[in-house]
């Protein structure tokens, strides 16, 4: 399945856009998405290793399944406030 992943901050800047598409075999977990995203964007591998992921705007563990149609986002360590 194709997953669109939202990118922010350094990830968005490095890639040059706010979203990337990742191809994963079904069923897939957040952890498999993380691994595939790091392979696809080696220049972001360090950041992706420290990032969290969100499904439908909610933090998700690596073990969670990726439901089809979910809004997926890569959340590098935050620095607001």
């Amino acid at each position, binding site marked *: 399945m194709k997953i669109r992943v*939202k990118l*922010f*901050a*350094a990830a*968005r*800047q490095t890639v040059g856009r706010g979203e990337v598409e990742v191809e994963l075999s079904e069923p897939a977990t957040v952890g498999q998405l993380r691994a595939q995203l790091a392979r696809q964007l080696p220049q972001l591998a*360090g*950041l992706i290793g*420290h990032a969290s992921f*969100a499904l439908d*705007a*909610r*933090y998700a563990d690596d073990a969670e399944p990726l439901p089809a149609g979910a*809004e997926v*986002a890569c*959340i*590098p*360590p*935050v*620095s*607001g*406030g």
Partner: protein
Amino acid sequence: MIQLTHDPIGHADVLQTVASTAAGAIVLFLGTAREMTGGRRTASLEYDCYEAMAQKELAALEAEARDRWELVDCAIVHRLGSTGLGEASVAIAVSSAHRAAAFEAGRWLIDRIKEVVPIWKKENWADGTSQWVHPGVGE
């Protein structure tokens, strides 16, 4: 009250939001753009945000604060986009009958915001370089 805004934060409005004759104490916290960080000079800050999620996370933190402390009211405003030196990036106002709750909830909220809310700061250094801040990620 939760708000994400590209405009300067009006702290008078934020205070007004939590004012009440039920309150004996109001604590307002402002996070402001500091000029010097570790010997380097900042020209401005810029904030990126996953807005849909930041709204949810901020609302969850407000709800948890209201659960943990007896609050009269609570307001959180975060600035997005470019933020000049001295300007507020975040304002948290908490009112309560007694001061302990307002101080503790205010401190807890800013600590938690810095841990979980998907907002990111970019330092635009005075030397013309810039850098997104991702704590814990090696440079």
